[in-house]
């Protein structure tokens, strides 16, 4: 059931949200229809939708796994869970892959063509083989679309050839797309989403089909490619063996003598070669193939001006002037000017910063200093944004998203699946939701060691192994801390209670959060709490899978036989094995005579041993051995799920501590008479 929104209750913003929410549903509905890669065509709102649910999910995941532009790198792959949880989904994926395979077979020739071209030299691949490709393309597009036509029966067949040509040109535009060779195309994602996003009429459909066509081709080719690659790499896991072959170089080619051999072509990569371009140009002077020699000669004639930078820039200008496209020159000039300006600005900024810094030394006011700091941060951020823009912004928005994720200031719509119904039932609009992200490690559970101090306004000291509710970063959860203190030798000694006015260490089981995160702890979420509620504060120090905390253990034994300085002790250990573990350990009698464990005795009570002391011990002496025992930590983690209860935190039940339980149930406090 839909959660009931009272239109009067929420303000305008919430109303807006409400609208958006509906749109998501609608769109999702549509997406299940059109995300299909397979051959089935499903009508909107048809009954099949239910059956194909898994299939769709699979599809969505596939798509989103292709490229997850949102920088929640946290947990991108979810399909695994899916696979494990639903048995049915695997079947679906099978069918999916089958259909893909079919496509592969259809297109294999075409793909091979284009791939090999890409891999080879793309510079030459400008227009010479375009005819060939073109025709191929046309065929493939046609055949693929025929399939669709059979199912959907849309009248779009006119102008296939034009569209094919157009799609070819598009493909041509992205000449050598190494990106796609490596990652596969993620156009599929965008296109399918576009399609599920936009409310399109039939006229739009044909465009949709065309794009999707090209998408499928490239996706398939990339999939196939990756499969090939895996088989190439082999299970040897060697970075130098490719498919079990050792990479060899053609030595003949290198050792060949003569004027234009390979070695000579490298000459300009050495300091002894020509410095015809500034080193900053980034290896632009390594056109070493025969075909490139024409350019090379040109440069040589240009070199007569002299081999330094100035002349070189002249050369460049000449080159740009001689460029037939005048627009390019303009753009270049503009770029040059912009660069100059940026350089000047940067210089000024640096100077300015320096100035401020020196001024700051001489007693700047706090708020002034803070402003300065903020300003610097802001500028740094701007610089970073600019760098990103420069690096990823050139090829348009979608590529940028692919590399950069969703940057600040973009609007995005977030869909959260699997929200418990109780959350919606008990949703209160008075409490806005804030959505944040976590790094992958922060979703892992483990032990957290923190520096911990009882709050000085809190009345009582805290007991070890009593549950506490921690608030760290985004989270609130209940866990059981173990208190300890660090001895001189780095040993962590167990503490029964927190010190009154001192820091101690607390170790608890919970989600790992980065060191230096602040911690706040309270004892109970509900009920009347007399006095100050905040029990303790602290800071995260370290994360690990386990922390050693030890407590004292005194082993006690009695002498059975006493020689001069030697005595036989029993009752301290239970077996010879235990004794052998403690050979050489120092022991002590009550009267303070020190000694050492020597060796287990064969006869007598198991675990009895021979020990030597610095003096003769008395029969009545009790012998101690002081040891350290590791303390077992409780792995208890209970998130505070107050939003799932109607009454908020009152509806959440945490673990109660022993004292509270005794109070509630009127149980008398246990007393150990032997203590």
């Amino acid at each position, binding site marked *: 059931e839909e959660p009931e929104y009272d239109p009067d209750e929420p303000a305008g913003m919430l109303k807006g949200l409400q609208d958006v929410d509906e749109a998501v549903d609608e769109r999702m509905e549509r997406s299940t229809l059109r995300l299909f890669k397979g051959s089935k065509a499903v009508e909107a709102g048809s009954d099949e939708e239910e059956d194909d649910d898994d299939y769709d999910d699979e599809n969505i995941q596939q798509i989103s796994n292709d490229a997850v532009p949102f920088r929640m790198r946290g947990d991108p792959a979810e399909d695994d869970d899916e696979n494990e949880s639903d048995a049915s989904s695997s079947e679906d994926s099978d069918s999916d892959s089958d259909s893909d395979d079919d496509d592969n077979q259809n297109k294999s020739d075409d793909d091979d063509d284009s791939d090999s071209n890409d891999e080879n030299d793309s510079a030459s691949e400008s227009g010479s083989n375009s005819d060939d490709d073109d025709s191929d393309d046309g065929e493939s597009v046609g055949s693929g679309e025929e399939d669709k036509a059979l199912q959907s029966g849309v009248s779009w067949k006119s102008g296939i050839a034009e569209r094919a040509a157009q799609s070819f040109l598009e493909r041509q535009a992205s000449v050598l797309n190494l990106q796609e060779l*490596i990652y596969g195309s993620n156009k599929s994602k965008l296109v399918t989403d*576009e399609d599920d996003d936009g409310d399109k009429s039939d006229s739009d459909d044909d465009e949709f089909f065309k794009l999707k066509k090209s998408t499928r081709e490239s996706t398939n080719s990339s999939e196939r490619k990756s499969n090939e690659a895996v088989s190439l790499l082999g299970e040897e896991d060697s970075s130098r063996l490719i498919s079990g072959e050792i990479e060899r170089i053609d030595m003949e080619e290198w050792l060949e003598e003569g004027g234009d051999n390979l070695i000579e072509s490298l000459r300009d990569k050495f300091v002894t070669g020509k410095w015809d371009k500034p080193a900053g140009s980034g290896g632009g002077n390594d056109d070493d193939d025969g075909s490139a020699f024409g350019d090379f000669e040109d440069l040589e004639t240009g070199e007569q001006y002299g081999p330094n930078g100035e002349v070189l820039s002249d050369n460049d200008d000449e080159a740009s002037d001689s460029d037939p496209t005048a627009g390019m020159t303009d753009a270049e000039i503009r770029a040059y000017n912009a660069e100059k300006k940026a350089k000047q600005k940067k210089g000024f900024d640096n100077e300015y910063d320096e100035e401020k810094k020196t001024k700051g030394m001489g007693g700047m006011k706090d708020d002034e200093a803070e402003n300065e700091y903020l300003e610097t941060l802001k500028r740094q951020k701007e610089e970073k944004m600019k760098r990103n823009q420069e690096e*990823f912004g050139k090829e348009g928005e979608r590529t940028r998203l692919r590399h950069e994720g969703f940057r600040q200031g973009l609007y995005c719509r977030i869909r959260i699946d699997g929200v418990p119904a109780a959350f919606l039932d008990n949703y209160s609009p008075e409490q*806005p939701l804030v959505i944040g992200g976590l790094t992958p490690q922060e*979703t892992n559970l483990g032990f957290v060691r923190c520096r911990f101090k009882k709050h000085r306004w809190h009345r009582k000291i805290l007991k070890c192994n009593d549950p506490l509710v921690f608030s760290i970063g985004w989270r609130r959860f209940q866990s059981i801390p173990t208190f300890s203190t660090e001895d001189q030798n780095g040993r962590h000694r167990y503490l029964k209670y927190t010190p009154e006015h001192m820091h101690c260490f607390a170790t608890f089981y919970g989600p790992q959060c980065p060191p230096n995160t602040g911690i706040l702890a309270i004892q109970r979420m509900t009920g009347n709490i007399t006095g100050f509620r905040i029990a303790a504060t602290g800071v995260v120090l370290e994360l690990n899978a386990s922390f050693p905390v030890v407590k004292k253990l005194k082993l006690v034994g009695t002498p059975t036989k006493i020689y001069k300085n030697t005595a036989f002790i029993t009752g301290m250990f239970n077996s010879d094995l235990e004794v052998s573990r403690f050979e050489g350990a120092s022991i002590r009698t009550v009267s303070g005579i020190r000694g050492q464990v020597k060796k287990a005795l064969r006869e007598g009570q198991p675990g009895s041993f021979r020990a030597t002391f610095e003096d003769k011990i008395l029969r009545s002496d009790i012998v101690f051995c002081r040891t350290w025992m590791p303390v077992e930590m409780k792995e208890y983690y209970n998130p505070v799920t107050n939003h799932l209860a109607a009454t908020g935190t009152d509806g959440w039940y945490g673990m109660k501590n022993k004292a509270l339980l005794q109070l509630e149930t009127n149980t008398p406090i246990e007393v150990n008479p032997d203590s």
Partner: protein
Amino acid sequence: QGFIIPFFILRCYPTPTTAKCEVYKETHHYPQYPPHHHLTAAAEMGKSSATAFSKRKNSGGGSSSSSRTLRFEDGATQFRQRIVVSLLSHRPLLIRNIRADDLQNPGLKDYEASFLRLIDQLTNGSKIEINSTGTQLRFHPGTLLGGTDLKHACPDSRSIGWFLEGILPLAPFGKESLAITFTGITDGLCQVDPSADYWNRSGLPLFSAFGIGVENDFDEEKPQIRVLQRAAAPESEGNGKVLFTCPIVKQLQSIDMVDPGKIKRIRGTAISCKIVSSSMAARVAYAAKGIFHKLLPDVWIHTDVHTSKRHRCGPSPGIMMVVSSESTTGIILTAECCMDHRQHQQGVNTDSSLIPSKTGLEIPEDLGKRGACMLLEEIRRGGCIDTSCQSLAFLWMALTPEDVSRIRVGTLSQYSIETLRLIKHAFDVEFKVTPDMESKTVLLSCLGTGYRNMAKAST
């Protein structure tokens, strides 16, 4: 009062279904498409499913966060990198079908098992489950510890370089700085794996490029790879020793390596091991110098002769050469070559034709020339990093702060391409790959994840 409701409360709540988040983004206009095309992108944020209310079983750790599991069905391909990436991304790993088709020797090899032991030594809380045939590996990553005075004995089937290559990416992310001594084969397998000498020359500059150990003042705190004793393939008898030390960092630095510069010097070492004649190494060096001198006068190739008497090198004879070039911009390219010991065994019958001279054994002069040509080949490719270092650089680039890192490589090797895919899979970092037509190189850039070393304790 407004209450902040953390989003992941949803995550922590045990639900039978998988929660999935998709992010839709709408942009208004962008040039190449008509405005009515709303660009939407589905993103999956995933969630760790069902973290139970109370105790989480320690032993079943893998199942509790299986939604984030990195699954691979194609066996031991990229074995080390997958484990490393699993550790760095804190996602469990499942590898299946490890040599499942091999009826004689299915499952993990001895060196892979050894690598797992090494990882176990370096981490705390890692769970490694291997099924009875060894064809399936389930790895649940723990916390990286590091530590000094560690030792690892490598089996003779793989050189120390293979193990080193595996843990290099992990080294700066431990709780403590790392100092580990490997024993095993140091020389003679460089046609298969980069050797320790290679990493010393080519890997360490990469460490400083990423800001590892640059702030430390003392030499002992700098990353170093030192070959203490040598042992050539096929048998080491525990003689080869390599010390690898690496300090930890809180965060890497982003890099910008796009300018290969001009090569100003070439340095190298010709190493012979357990060969009686000391002139062998000199002959290798001489031949290599002969080629380099055509291009550059500043060439130094040292000889390093190890005998079993004085240096306690291993029982097998071997000869190898490492040469590296340094450019004006500090770019170091390295190549190495070695005598293939398998030819000693096969004699004249070298069917595999691993060496150009078909007469059987390669003479030292040919070895020197081959090494020189290999370096020239690296130079010709025109990258700022040599082929075997690519994958390490890529992995670290993905872990830099959220800033652009750029690198120029000559030719993307198949291994690096697989690395790029793995990075995409595990960290969701997609590199921008732009071929540079003019110089026939490839420019790669990415935005780092802002990875922070959370294992490092704060003081």
